[in-house]
């Protein structure tokens, strides 16, 4: 749209754009409603309605999800909205669907822990979702920054939602790291704006500006901007906050952190890297830079995870390593590799929620560190069987979808190697796959203590809601291994353009 357009045209444009904003408007309404309901519930002074805000959260996120689904069929072409600041396409819709489902399960997991300030909690989680929606669609620098901060600020508060001292400490750490990295990113973006003269990374102007200034300054500016996205993804070198925050935050929030901001950060990083490479014309090898980050992230995450004795901290490092695997889709940077990355993202989400759901289950039983799991395998075979499936899927061993996802994401890399004959890609492929062996070592530690070590533990009931939710997730993981074609058929419809 032309900048000099008159006010009526601008208003018309905004009205038109709002038509593509269904899921976001629903989330926004949900936030308002849940805050109002919170006030009413509190004035009733009755504990029996404590679950109501959470149920509103479930309904809101699932509605937003189904609207995204409904839009799917009309999204044959990407739509630029709000003066080109936002792009609505199937790539973003897919991530929005995953994030919304993740949000709904987060609320379900939260039901188990009666908390203080429930309606505010729900509003904050919905804000994270809303921010993730925006971030996955953003191509304007201002919009990128705003939506990233929207996720961050809500996350800072959520990180301290255990209302304990360590929670406050984790929250503060997160805040300090977050603001610092946001400042760094902002500096990078401002340099890029200065270099190219455009604040929209998808615009022709931006790409031409980049090609005209292939300089050291551009390299620095790009790296600074990347730092902000890597922070959201918890990838090296911006990962340091993750273990402390994960350890201190309540389990449903940790599960949320491990999926929603990560995928939203991945979305904007993918768009950003594609813009930086200027459709392959850039002199600076951005793919190699991302490749290096990916390998270092996978290796460092895995190696650090080996030494953890706290289950949450271990999973924090695991989620760092998994960021690296997701980034491999960006390294190959073909339409297929991005589709495979979307498949990986969906599988990662399911497996991670399965694991965190059961970690929460054991946490409420007082099992916190990995040695605490000793002997619980025999007392509670169903829970441990399901947990094992989730861990196996994260490792990437058949018959779970985690294997299929790893197979596909490395296929993307292999194929990129074939088409470019760039030996650097092989140098990513081999350590990437070998990392699976390291990963196995720590992913197996919980089952190892649970089954191989002796210990107490009262026999558990089998027919519980946790196990029902677990069963659904387990069947999803197994089903996606034996019949990946259905989901892949959907993902195949994602066309990725900037």
């Amino acid at each position, binding site marked *: 749209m032309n900048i000099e357009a008159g006010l009526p045209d601008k208003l018309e444009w905004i009205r038109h754009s709002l038509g593509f904003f269904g899921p976001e408007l629903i989330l926004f309404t949900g936030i308002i409603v849940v805050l109002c309901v919170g006030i009413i519930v509190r004035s009733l002074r009755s504990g029996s309605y404590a679950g109501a805000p959470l149920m509103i959260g479930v309904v809101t996120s699932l509605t937003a999800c189904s609207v995204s689904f409904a839009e799917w069929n009309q999204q044959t072409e990407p739509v630029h909205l709000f003066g080109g600041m936002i792009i609505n396409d199937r790539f973003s819709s897919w991530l929005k669907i995953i994030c919304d489902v993740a949000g709904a399960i987060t609320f379900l997991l939260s039901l188990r822990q009666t908390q203080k300030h429930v309606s505010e909690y729900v509003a904050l989680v919905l804000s994270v979702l809303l921010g993730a929606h925006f971030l996955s669609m953003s191509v304007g620098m201002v919009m990128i920054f705003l939506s990233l901060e929207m996720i961050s600020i809500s996350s800072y508060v959520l990180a301290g939602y255990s209302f304990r001292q360590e929670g406050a400490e984790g929250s503060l750490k997160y805040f300090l790291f977050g603001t610092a990295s946001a400042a760094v990113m902002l500096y990078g973006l401002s340099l890029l704006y200065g270099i190219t003269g455009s604040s929209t990374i998808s615009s022709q102007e931006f790409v031409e500006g980049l090609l005209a200034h292939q300089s050291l300054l551009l390299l620095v500016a790009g790296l600074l901007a990347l730092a902000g996205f890597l922070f959201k993804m918890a990838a090296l070198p911006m990962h340091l906050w993750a273990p402390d925050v994960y350890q201190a935050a309540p389990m449903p929030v940790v599960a949320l952190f491990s999926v929603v901001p990560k995928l939203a950060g991945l979305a904007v990083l993918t768009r950003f890297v594609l813009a930086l490479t200027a459709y392959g014309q850039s002199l600076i090898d951005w793919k190699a830079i991302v490749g290096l980050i990916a390998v270092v992230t996978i290796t460092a995450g895995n190696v650090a995870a080996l030494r953890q004795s706290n289950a949450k901290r271990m999973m924090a490092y695991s989620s760092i390593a998994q960021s690296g695997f997701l980034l491999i889709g960006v390294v190959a940077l073909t*339409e297929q590799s991005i589709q495979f990355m979307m498949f990986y993202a969906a599988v990662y989400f399911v497996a991670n929620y399965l694991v965190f759901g059961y970690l929460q289950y054991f946490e409420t039983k007082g099992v916190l560190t990995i040695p605490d799991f000793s002997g619980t395998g025999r007392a509670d075979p169903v829970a441990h069987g399901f947990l094992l499936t989730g861990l196996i899927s994260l490792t990437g*061993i*058949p018959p779970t979808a985690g294997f299929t996802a790893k197979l596909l994401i490395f296929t993307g890399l*292999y194929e990129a190697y074939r088409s470019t004959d760039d030996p650097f890609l092989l140098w990513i492929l081999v350590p990437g*796959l070998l990392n*699976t062996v390291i990963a196995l070592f720590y992913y197996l530690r919980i089952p190892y203590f649970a*089954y191989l070590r002796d210990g107490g533990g009262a026999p558990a009931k089998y027919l519980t809601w946790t196990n029902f939710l677990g069963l659904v997730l387990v069947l999803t993981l197994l089903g996606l291994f034996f019949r990946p*074609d259905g989901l*892949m058929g959907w993902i195949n419809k994602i066309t990725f353009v900037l």
Partner: protein
Amino acid sequence: MPDHILTYLIFLPVLAAFAALFIPRDRSAWFRVLNLAVCVVQAILVIVAIGRYGKETGELRLIERTEWFSLNLGTWGNLQAEYFLGVDGLSLPLVALTVFVMIIAGISSWTIQKSVKGYFTLMLILNAAVIGSFTALDLLLFYLFFEFMLLPMFFLIGIWGGSRREYASIKFFLYTLLGSILILVAFIGLYISGSVPGDVATHTFNVMHLRDEGNYVPGSILDPNGRWLIGGWSARNWAFLLLFIGFAIKLPMVPFHTWLPDAHVEAPTPVSVILAALLLKIGGYGLLRIAYPLFPDAAASLSWIVGLFGVVSIIYGALTAMASKDLKRLIAYSSVSHMGFVLLGMASATQEGVTGAVYQMVSHGVITSMLFLIAGVLYDRTSDRMIENYSGLARIMPVYFAVVLIAFFASLGLPGFSGFIAEIMVFLGAFRSDVIHLSLAIIATLGLALGAAYYLWTIQRMFFGTLHVRGAATIEQLTDLDLREKTMFLPLAAATLILGIFPQLLLRYIDPFAVGFVALLTGGS
């Protein structure tokens, strides 16, 4: 005519494992009977399968083939995975061996007291995975079964094993997973490069399609007609090497063998039996089914490495066995030594050598089952397996002594036993081969002498001389074999004798396979 006998063989134990989950955990006897019943039904199915396999031409029979899934990969076309099962002269004997050993291991498992439910459930899953690995002809399906063996084995060693079981089980898992990752790298390259006949856009995991060099996409990494180089070396050589190391870890081959003694020493007797008799064979099977036929050109130039490491394994395994103080460790190292013959045989790329390699796999499966049961008999009675602690046992355990003599003589390759046939064929191949240098073959014969030495020395130390025991064991504990143990040893001893006296029973299946195998190799060079 569609024939689902292989599917029944694989999924019967899976169904039984599922059923076992619903049996109350205190009914130990039910699980034992269930497991045995499954194995017996499988044995009947195998006999039927052998009948239906019919005339021995070495080709694939009892084929089951349907599409598993087809993934759309956008501009690269499709990825097709198939549910493709079948047996030929290589896999049919191994499937029969699997069922046979599973029955013996099932009976041997009756001594297990701890968490019987979990134990037999895992045994049943393992059973299905092993048979699946031997019959799958789609790389993805094979990989599924191959990996599916790891977790049950990890828990079987880790929960029911000896004092260092935790270390041993983790070590086993990590080594094997490392191997399977290397295999996976090669598999990804294979399916990206291969396609179904007549349709370059449909990529396939089908082993039979990938054998045909016409089915490779021109210009792909593993295209036999293209010369894709990685670090100055053909990509096909790299892929062969990856498969070789991956399967060699499983085999195991020196220097990748160090997981084996630990796993064996710690594993309970029936698990050791399955590990040595069946899981090791999957390493050899993988080389014969996948690495060699899919990369005949690379095999032609690299086979000497396989032979070299085969000989190293033979000698090193034998020397270490001789130095072992623990009877079970001695047997474990003898396995390393004997699996070296499998490598030497296939590396020779001659009909005799390949036949000998397959024969050795079957023969070793039978003999090593006896050997591990022998170690188990001693351990059950005294919880002590140190060779130096026993002397003169022949006087108080005559039946046991007889069994030990049969097993040891069979294992050291005495004529009349199956091991002799296998080793003589391997040497015939190795001496005739253009690939194996004559000196290597001569050094390998030293392995026979060493084998005789450590077995005879063990017999002399443990069974002859004055009767006495040292350490924690007492003479009163050393009772002779009971009925259950005799019923385990009898069929095994009979099998090694029958295979030693009537080799034609097995050769008529293996020979046609070996002919086809050698033709494939020489056609490709």
